[in-house]
């Protein structure tokens, strides 16, 4: 049973939001495919929450249109939009029991008492909290409260599930569990979900599509792999994971790679990029995890590899892996993350860094 899925189930067209002279969301277009989980990712103040709140009907766009299922909903009031909303601070009604909280949306949809009971119980089972219906929200832990908020939102069978930083109020350990739970639940129900977060790990781990935003504008959108491995610009590469940037001038093709000349006049092989002409200024981006360290004394050159030499100036041990900061002769400090093999390198060790040209990508400066 493969039902045709609408690739533009939710569509923002030329949407813009201004608060006085401050532009929160610059005119933009965005499409959310049916049944997918899309993350709006960015630092605070990037407009991600404003975008979500405009869809929810809690903010009015300054211009542009919003469509759900091809129907323009700009003028539909919030309570008729049939959206499930999850808030950062759970937003459970503190004066109502868990059951009353979950049945709240059903009550306003004219669901009969018996159906209400059935649906609420089923929702509680879905979030794996059966039998807490008679308790008050304050009697539950933060994680449980957020699961009740989830139950309250899904029980009304919303067209779109909107989540505004739902995990940020939870403990680190709980966050991981809750993230998997939301992910599983979303897959199970197949409800179109928009998830707002500033946490790249959340975004990368659970999304079908990540929309990276900054200053009210979309920087890049794509699958987690696309935005991580093929970051469109400096901001995206920097925001997702740990990246090193080196200024370079594009040189000759050297099949299958491309040559680039660094600031200290050394050559570096980078993965080919069509849109860079020889002589153009560019920036090489290298992920901290893609570089390997070795003692300078053990150095042997392999063909078609890039090498940098330097001294470890700082390191932080993170359990399975160690984060090293290596100062090169020309002064730049590179961030390298390696798994611990034997004993970790110490501060002051002379090392070489090896990196496959395939992991050196060119970006426009």
């Amino acid at each position, binding site marked *: 049973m493969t039902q045709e899925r609408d690739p533009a189930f939710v569509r923002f067209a030329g949407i813009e939001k201004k608060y006085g002279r401050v532009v929160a969301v610059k005119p933009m277009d965005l499409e959310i495919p049916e049944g997918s989980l899309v993350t709006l990712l960015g630092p605070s103040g990037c407009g991600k929450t404003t975008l979500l709140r405009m869809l*929810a*009907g*809690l903010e009015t766009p300054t211009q542009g249109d919003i469509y759900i299922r091809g129907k323009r909903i700009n003028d539909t*009031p*919030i*309570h*008729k*939009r049939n*959206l*499930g*909303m999850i*808030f*950062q*601070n759970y*937003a459970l*009604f*503190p*004066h*109502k029991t868990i059951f*009353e909280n979950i049945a*709240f*949306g059903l009550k*306003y*949809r004219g669901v009969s008492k018996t159906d209400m009971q059935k649906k609420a119980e089923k929702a509680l089972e879905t979030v794996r909290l059966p039998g807490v219906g008679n308790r008050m929200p304050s009697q539950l832990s933060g994680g449980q409260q957020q699961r009740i908020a989830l139950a*309250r939102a899904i029980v*009304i069978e919303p067209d779109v599930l*909107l989540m505004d930083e739902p995990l940020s109020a939870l403990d680190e350990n709980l966050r991981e569990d809750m993230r998997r739970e939301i992910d599983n639940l979303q897959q199970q129900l197949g409800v179109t979900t928009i998830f707002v977060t500033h946490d790249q790990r959340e975004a990368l781990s659970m999304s079908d599509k990540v929309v990276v935003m900054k200053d009210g504008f979309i920087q890049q959108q794509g699958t987690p792999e696309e935005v991580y491995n093929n970051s469109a610009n400096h901001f995206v590469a920097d925001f997702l994971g740990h990246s090193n940037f080196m200024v370079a001038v594009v040189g000759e093709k050297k099949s299958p790679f491309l040559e680039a000349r660094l600031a200290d006049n050394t050559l570096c092989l980078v993965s080919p990029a069509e849109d860079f002409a020889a002589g153009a200024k560019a920036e090489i981006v290298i992920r901290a995890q893609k570089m390997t360290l070795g003692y300078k004394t053990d150095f042997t050159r392999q063909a078609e590899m890039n090498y940098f030499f330097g001294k470890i100036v700082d390191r932080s041990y993170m359990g399975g892996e160690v984060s090293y900061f290596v100062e090169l002769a020309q002064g730049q400090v590179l961030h390298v993350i390696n798994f611990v093999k034997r004993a970790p390198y110490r501060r002051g060790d002379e090392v070489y860094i090896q990196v496959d040209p395939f992991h050196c990508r060119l970006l426009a400066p």
Partner: protein
Amino acid sequence: MKEKNWKPLLLLSPSLTAVFLLLVVPVCFVVVYSFWLRAPSGQDIPAFQFGNYAKFFADFFYPSILLNTLRVALETVILCLFLGYIPAFFFYKTQSRLKPYLMLLVMLPFWISFIIRTLSWINILGDSGLINHLLLKAGFISAPLSLLYNEGAVIMGLLQYLLPFMILNIYVSLDGIDKSLTEAAQSLGCTEWQAFKEVTLPLSMPGVSAGCLLVFVLTCGTYLPPMILGGPGNEMIANLIFKRVIGTLDWPFGSAISVILMLLLGLIVYTYNRYMGINQIFKSLSNG
């Protein structure tokens, strides 16, 4: 270990001493006085007898004033609640940059003497006051309306005194409500009005409850508005005490009335908290 026990007490002792000297001791004096005997010569004779209390309940005159006081207090509470909730809600909702200044306006009356404020109503409601003057000028009436020296004027005077207490109490409660709760209610299908009924109103009940109690108790203890703006029939219990103590210098009887008022208010506050307590109000409203 022992140090831990007396240190907080030591630190609290200045304020405890102040409370004791300023509140507990005077009340004890009043209670003791209420048992004293007043000689026909006007002398107060130390004694322990219930004559002053018996005098209060001897006929219906004194209790009727007490009942009248409670009725006026109740009317004032109800009016204060409706007139106070609206501005409090406005302060909660408004995004205006003028909000701090508007809130200052609520506090402004406290800077002017209560007596002056009460007296000023004579200039508004009196026979040659503002309202009558305007109505006469406009030709709506041919003779001045008697707006002063009745219960309406007394309640007016009480309102202008007590409204800020109600507004601030309700506002504090409203301000503590997470705005995402109303948003959640609306996203689940409530109109704005339904969200108010379901969420905002019940959650503002602690403030409403505290404001009502405060206004009620304060009304029962005021004597200025009835004295200045009321007629002979609008006397309240505090006026009676004032007259006995300051007018006829009958301290024992004045004290006895004070004790009766105190006990009655104590009982009302206790019952109110017991049966109309915050939890109770929450529950009764949330089932609707």
